[in-house]
C-alpha cells in the first residue's frame, strides 16, 4: 500500500511538473545585502548587478514573473537572522541570494539550508561553507574567501619578490587574507602588520614599510580603510618605489575616491571590465547605461547570480522544485561575465583569476583592468573536505 501511494505521488509530481509552464507561476527571491553603514557601497553594487540581471530577463527569470525582495542586513548577524526568518516564513521566498559579509553569511546559512531553500551566494565565501559544511542547496557565484589573496601570493612569487611585507586589519578576515597570500607565496615575509579595524591614518605603518624596504607589499584593506591607505601610500611617495599588491582594496567601489592615487596599483580578482567575452561587454555597457557608474566585481557577481537562476529555470522549463532545479543549477547553464565558469564539487566556481591594475578609463573615471591571468580553471582549497549528502 505504502509503495502504491509513493508511486502515485511520484506520478502526480511528474504531472505537476509538466503542468507548471502552463500556469502563470511566479518566483519570489529574497535578496540580502549590506545596504547601510560604511560598507553599503558593496551591497549597492551587488544589488544593482542582480537587479540588472533580472531586468534583462524581462523581469521573468526562466519565464517566471520574478519578485525580488531586497533586505538590508545592516552588517549585524542577529538582525540578518531575524530578517532571513521573515523572508523564509512570512514571505515564503522560493530562493535566497546575495550576502556581502562572511559573518552575516555564517549567521543566515544554517536556517536557509535547513529549510531546504536554494541559496545563491553572490559574495561571501567563508571556508566552513566551502568545506565541511557545504550543502547541495548552496551555490556561489563569487569565490571562496582565500582565493583573491592566493592570486596575489602566486603573482608575488612569479615576479621573484623575495621580501614582502603583508598588512591587514586585525580581525578574522584579515588573518585569512594573509593565510591565503602565504599559501602560494614562496619568498620571505619580512613583517606582518596588523592594523586596527577601521584605522584612518597609516603613517606609522608606512614609515615602517619604507624603513624595511621590501620588494613589495601585500595588503587587504576593504572599504574606506583601503581608500585612506591608497591615498596615503601615494602621498608618502611609496607608490613608485614599492609595488603594491592587494585584494578587495583597489576596485570600482573605491576608485571613485582614490582616483589617480590608485593608478597603477595591483589587485587580484576573478573579473575585470575588460575581460573579452560578449556577455561581459553587454553587462558593462548596460550597467553603466542604467546606473551611471562603473561596475565592480561585486556587481558582476550579483549579475551572474541572476543569470545563473535564469539559465537554470529556463533549463527546467520554469520548474522551481529542488529536485529539478538543483541539477540544473549545478550544470551552470549560463554565460558568465568572467568567461570560463563551472561548479566544483562544493558548488563554488572553478574559474580563472587575474592580476588586475587600476587604470584611467576616460576623464575622471578609473577602472580595474585584467593584465595577466594568474590561475587557470582554479577551484578552492576546501572543496576536498566537502561531502555532499
Amino acid at each position, binding site marked *: 500500500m505504502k509503495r502504491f501511494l509513493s508511486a502515485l505521488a511520484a506520478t502526480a509530481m511528474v504531472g505537476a511538473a509538466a503542468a507548471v509552464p502552463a500556469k502563470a507561476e511566479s518566483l519570489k527571491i529574497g535578496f540580502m545585502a549590506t545596504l547601510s553603514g560604511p560598507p553599503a557601497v558593496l551591497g549597492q553594487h551587488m544589488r544593482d548587478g542582480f537587479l540588472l540581471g533580472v531586468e534583462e530577463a524581462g523581469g521573468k527569470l526562466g519565464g517566471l514573473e520574478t519578485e525580488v525582495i531586497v533586505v538590508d542586513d545592516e552588517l549585524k548577524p542577529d538582525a540578518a537572522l531575524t530578517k532571513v526568518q521573515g523572508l523564509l516564513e512570512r514571505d515564503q521566498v522560493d530562493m535566497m541570494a546575495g550576502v556581502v559579509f562572511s559573518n552575516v553569511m555564517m549567521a543566515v546559512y544554517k536556517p536557509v539550508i535547513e529549510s531546504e531553500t536554494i541559496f545563491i551566494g553572490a559574495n561571501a565565501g567563508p571556508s566552513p561553507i566551502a568545506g565541511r559544511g557545504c550543502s547541495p542547496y548552496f551555490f556561489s557565484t563569487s569565490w571562496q574567501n582565500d582565493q583573491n589573496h592566493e592570486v596575489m601570493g602566486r603573482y608575488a612569487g612569479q615576479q621573484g619578490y623575495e621580501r614582502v611585507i603583508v598588512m591587514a586589519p586585525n580581525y578574522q578576515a584579515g588573518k585569512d587574507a594573509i593565510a591565503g597570500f602565504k599559501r602560494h607565496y614562496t619568498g620571505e615575509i619580512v613583517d606582518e602588520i596588523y592594523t586596527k579595524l577601521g584605522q584612518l*591614518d597609516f*603613517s*606609522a605603518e608606512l614609515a615602517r614599510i619604507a*624603513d624595511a624596504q621590501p620588494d613589495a607589499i601585500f595588503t587587504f584593506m576593504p572599504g574606506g580603510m583601503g581608500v*585612506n591607505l591608497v591615498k596615503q601610500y601615494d602621498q608618502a611617495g611609496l607608490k613608485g618605489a614599492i609595488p603594491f599588491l592587494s585584494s578587495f582594496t583597489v576596485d570600482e567601489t573605491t576608485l571613485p*575616491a582614490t582616483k589617480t592615487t590608485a593608478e597603477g596599483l595591483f589587485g587580484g580578482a576573478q573579473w575585470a571590465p575588460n575581460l573579452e567575452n560578449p556577455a561581459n561587454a553587454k553587462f558593462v555597457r548596460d550597467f553603466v547605461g542604467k546606473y551611471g557608474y562603473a561596475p565592480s566585481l561585486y556587481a558582476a557577481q550579483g549579475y551572474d547570480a541572476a543569470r545563473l537562476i535564469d539559465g537554470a529555470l529556463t533549463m527546467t522549463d520554469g520548474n522551481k522544485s529542488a529536485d529539478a532545479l538543483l541539477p540544473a543549477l549545478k550544470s551552470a547553464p549560463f554565460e558568465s561575465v568572467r568567461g570560463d565558469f563551472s561548479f566544483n564539487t562544493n558548488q563554488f566556481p572553478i574559474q580563472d583569476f587575474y592580476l588586475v591594475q587600476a587604470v584611467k578609463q576616460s576623464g575622471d573615471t578609473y577602472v580595474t583592468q585584467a593584465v595577466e591571468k594568474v590561475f587557470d580553471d582554479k577551484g578552492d582549497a576546501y572543496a576536498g573536505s566537502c561531502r555532499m549528502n
Partner: protein
Amino acid sequence: MSATLLAVQTLNGLQLGVLLFLIAAGLTLVFGVMDFINLAHGVQYMLGAYLAVAAYQTTGSFWSALLLALVLSLFFGLVLEFFVFRHLYDRDHLDQVLATFGVILFLNEAVKVVWGAAPLSLPIPELLGGSIQLMENLRYPVYRIALIASGLGVAVLLYVLVTRTRIGMLVRAGATNPDIVAALGVNIRRLFMIVFGFGTMLAGFAGIMAAPILSVEPGMGDNLLILAFVVIVIGGIGSIRGAFLAALLIGLVDTLGRSLTTDVARMLLPPAAANDVGPAIASMLIYILMAGVLFFRPSGLFPAGRS
C-alpha cells in the same frame, strides 16, 4: 628601530594628535561650557568634509571650498541647534545622548542619500601639493605639515579667545557656574549658541582639513568621536589646554604603540603569538592610558572646575 624611524613616528604621532585636537576642541567647549553631551559632533565633522567635497565640485578651488564649507557647517550647526539641541539643554544627559545619537543615524543616512554610499575624496590643493624627503623611499606631504600648523593655529586662537577676551571670560565663567553667570545678567542662551556654533565650525574645519588625506564616507566621524571623547576625558572636560595636551598624548601613544608593541612582543614571545598580542595591546593602549589617568586624576589632567 633606527633613530630616524623613531623621529618619523614621533612626527606622525604629533600629526594624529593635532587632528584629534581639532575635533576634540569643539567637543570639550560644548560639553564643558554647556554641560551638553553632543554625540553628533562626529557627524558634524563628517558633514564638514562632505560640504567641502560638494563645494569643491562646484567651485573647483580648495580655498573657496574651505571657506564655503566653513560657512555652511556653521549654518547647519545653528539649524540643528535651533531645531534639536536647544530643547535638550535642560534635560538630563541620557536624553541628550539619545537625541544626539538619533542625529548621528539621521545624518549618516542623509549624506548617503545625497552623495551615495561610495567614499569620496578631496584633492590636495596645489599650493600644498609638494612633499619632503624624510627617509629613503618615504616622503612627507607638505599638506600634513599644513595640517599640523593649522591645528597649532587653532590652539593659539582658542587660547587667546578663552584667556584674553571678554567672551572667553564668560565662557570660563559659564563652565564653572552657569547659574551665577545668568544671574549676573548675561544672556546665557546666546552665549550657548555662540559656543555651540563655534564648536560646530571647529568640527567642520577638522572635517575639511582631513578630507584630502582621509576618505570621505558616511560614518567617517564615528570612530573619531570615540577618540575625541577619550581626549576630552583625559584632558579634563571643558579645558582647551587639557584637550590640546591630551590629544598630543593620545596621538603619540597610539602611533608609537602601533609601531613598537609588536616589536616588543616579538622579543618576549614566539612570532605567531607576538602577531596576535602586539596589535591587540596597541589598540588597547589609549584606553589603558585613560583608565590610568582617571584612577589618579578622576576629573582629568586639567579639570575646568565645574562645581
